[in-house]
């Protein structure tokens, strides 16, 4: 199993996965297509353009008033008996959770699937404190047992087949090698049920947080989030500061649109709306609830005139599902928590532009992602924006910059451009491309492009001479 440790390995990791793990491409494409088909069907039942406009406008409203909503949410959470923490960085967020765990002598944590906790590396941090962390989402549990990173933000184990799971469960739990999926599921249920009952602390993320009631909203299908946030005596929710919505009722639109976009369901099978710890008279529930507001690059992204719209993201995964680039390799090639189109535009903000390279370039700019984003993030435009920032920061190969400058010089001088273009026909197209590396990258697996015997403009000029130069007089000197 091959995966990148950081975005910088994308080119090599993607090549390796395609070469050495051909089943990954098939599995990822199959799962992504089926999710996209379901999204399409679910969208066709509703006035989707109106829903998307509303969701875009709601999130944009929140983001342009975010300080106000954060303060309101904090007030309400505290009134509800929730302990509120603030973490500027991934390290701080991990430290907050660890300190809650240490103070309460927590030995075992049950975790709901949370992209934010992957982003900050929470599991590894807790384990250094000797705390056992058990992922309870079935897909996350499977990859935890395998020691692999997630390959998709909604379906982390979609790269693993039934046979892979059979072999894993046989090794770990002694189930038969031909066990039916129901047997594997029952085994996981039994094993994790013990963890739920013994755990001292449940950790979750948050899909949304309604500021006016202080409600943490979580969406899932298995029930492990409901259980993780109900059984242990302490619940810690990590909430990215961009997750706010103004009012409880706003959750109706956001949750339904997110579910339809992620899996094609009208709603997630379980939605948790959490206000705080157990109240007097309630039979059960955690004694303590903590919310950790996490920044980790979000406020800086908010300050970016162009890229702030990225923060509308609801983590539905629709952009991954439709992305033809993502479908070739799955998430393992991207080298960090968020893959696909959203991963490429979040990385510069959360990891830094240099650390995120070359992800903003790992796209053909086909534009399919923008068509399926429920909150209308202009992903292709943002990819170009980050490419411009990368060029300005000298993060692209110097040869490319020089070649582009030379090309622009030529393009302003039609006679020279034409002459150079004529010469392309005589370039040595050598297999392996020692003459020009870029050609080698092409001819490795594709027939070389064949230039026409004579360029169209050259022929036109010869046929019609100077008769059609009216718009061009004086342009030969360059502008």
């Amino acid at each position, binding site marked *: 199993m091959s995966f990148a440790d950081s975005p910088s390995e994308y080119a090599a990791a993607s090549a390796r996965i395609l070469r050495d793990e051909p089943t990954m491409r098939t599995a990822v494409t199959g799962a992504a297509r089926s999710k996209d088909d379901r999204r399409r069907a679910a969208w066709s039942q509703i006035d989707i353009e109106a829903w998307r406009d509303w969701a875009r406008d709601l999130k944009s*409203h929140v983001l342009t008033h975010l300080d106000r909503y954060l303060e309101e949410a904090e007030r309400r959470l505290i009134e509800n008996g929730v302990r509120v923490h603030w973490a500027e960085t991934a390290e701080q967020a991990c430290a907050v959770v660890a300190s809650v765990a240490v103070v309460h002598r927590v030995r075992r944590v049950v975790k709901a699937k949370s992209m934010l906790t992957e982003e900050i590396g929470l599991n590894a941090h807790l384990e250094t404190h000797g705390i056992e962390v058990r992922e309870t989402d079935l897909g996350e549990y499977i990859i935890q047992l395998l020691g692999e990173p997630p390959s998709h933000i909604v379906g982390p184990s979609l790269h693993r087949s039934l046979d892979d*799971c059979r072999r894993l469960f046989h090794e770990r739990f002694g189930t038969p090698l031909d066990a039916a999926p129901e047997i594997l599921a029952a085994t996981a249920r039994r094993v994790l049920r013990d963890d739920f009952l013994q755990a001292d602390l449940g950790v979750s993320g948050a899909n949304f947080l309604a500021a006016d009631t202080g409600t943490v909203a979580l969406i899932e299908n298995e029930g492990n989030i*409901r259980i993780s946030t109900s059984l242990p005596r302490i619940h810690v929710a990590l909430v990215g*500061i961009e997750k706010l919505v103004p009012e409880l*009722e706003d959750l109706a639109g956001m949750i339904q649109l997110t579910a339809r976009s992620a899996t094609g369901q009208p*709603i997630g099978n379980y939605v948790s*709306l959490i206000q705080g710890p157990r109240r007097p008279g309630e*039979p059960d529930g955690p004694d303590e609830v903590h919310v950790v507001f996490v920044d980790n690059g979000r406020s800086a992204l908010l300050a970016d005139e162009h890229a702030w719209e990225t923060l509308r993201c609801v983590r539905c995964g629709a952009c991954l599902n439709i992305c033809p680039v993502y479908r070739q390799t799955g998430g393992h090639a991207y080298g960090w928590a968020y893959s696909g189109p959203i991963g490429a535009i979040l990385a510069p903000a959360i990891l830094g532009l240099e650390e995120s390279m070359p992800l903003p370039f790992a796209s053909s700019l086909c534009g399919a992602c923008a068509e399926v984003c429920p909150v209308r993030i202009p992903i292709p435009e943002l990819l170009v924006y980050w490419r411009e920032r990368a060029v300005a920061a000298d993060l692209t190969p110097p040869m490319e910059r020089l070649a582009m400058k030379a090309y622009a010089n030529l393009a302003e001088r039609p006679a020279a451009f034409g002459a150079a273009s004529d010469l392309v026909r005589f370039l040595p197209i050598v297999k392996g491309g020692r003459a020009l590396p870029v050609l080698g990258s092409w001819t490795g697996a594709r027939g070389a492009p064949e230039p026409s015997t004579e360029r169209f403009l050259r022929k036109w000029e010869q046929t019609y001479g100077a008769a059609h130069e009216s718009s061009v007089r004086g342009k030969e000197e360059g502008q």
Partner: protein
Amino acid sequence: MNSRNRILGYVRGATGSRRRLAHPGRFDGRYLLDDDRAPWERFAEMFSAAGGEVERFGTEDEAARWLVRFAEGFESATVGATVPSRLRPRVPLACPDLAALGVSVATGAIAETGSLVLDARDGRRSQLLAPTHVVFVREKDIHPTMVYALGRLRRDLPSAVGLHSGPSKSADIGQILVRGVHGPGRIIAAVVAS
């Protein structure tokens, strides 16, 4: 200056010079096809489509009789704190994590999403841990839309509300659908008309 104030400071600085965008108003999610059916019918269709089962009873007595018969096959049950005594099964009670059957009362339901609204005051464990779950809900408490249901919920919010819209399901094992990991694999919505 602590983290809180620094973060809020960054956020204020970030939004300060940007044009503030207005709230678009209450979500009124329209569908392409109008649905004129009674809320309980819409609820029943959505809930069943997601793999849930629906029973409908004219009176609480009918519902109680059905429950006694239904529960006969189960060796033990856990019952929510707000379940009225006449809606209790006659099998031995067990701890929620050991019981075969869970019985709850929903404070409402949502027709457009096919969801039962479950309240922490009824007891979360009995709503989540038994493999089979029966939930009673009054027909008059089935609201047409989620927006409407949340609007009613806000008047009296407990520590946690769960919207349950079908049996627990996962496709994480080789993309094949399995049920009952980790919530109930079987859920019956028992709708009582009056």
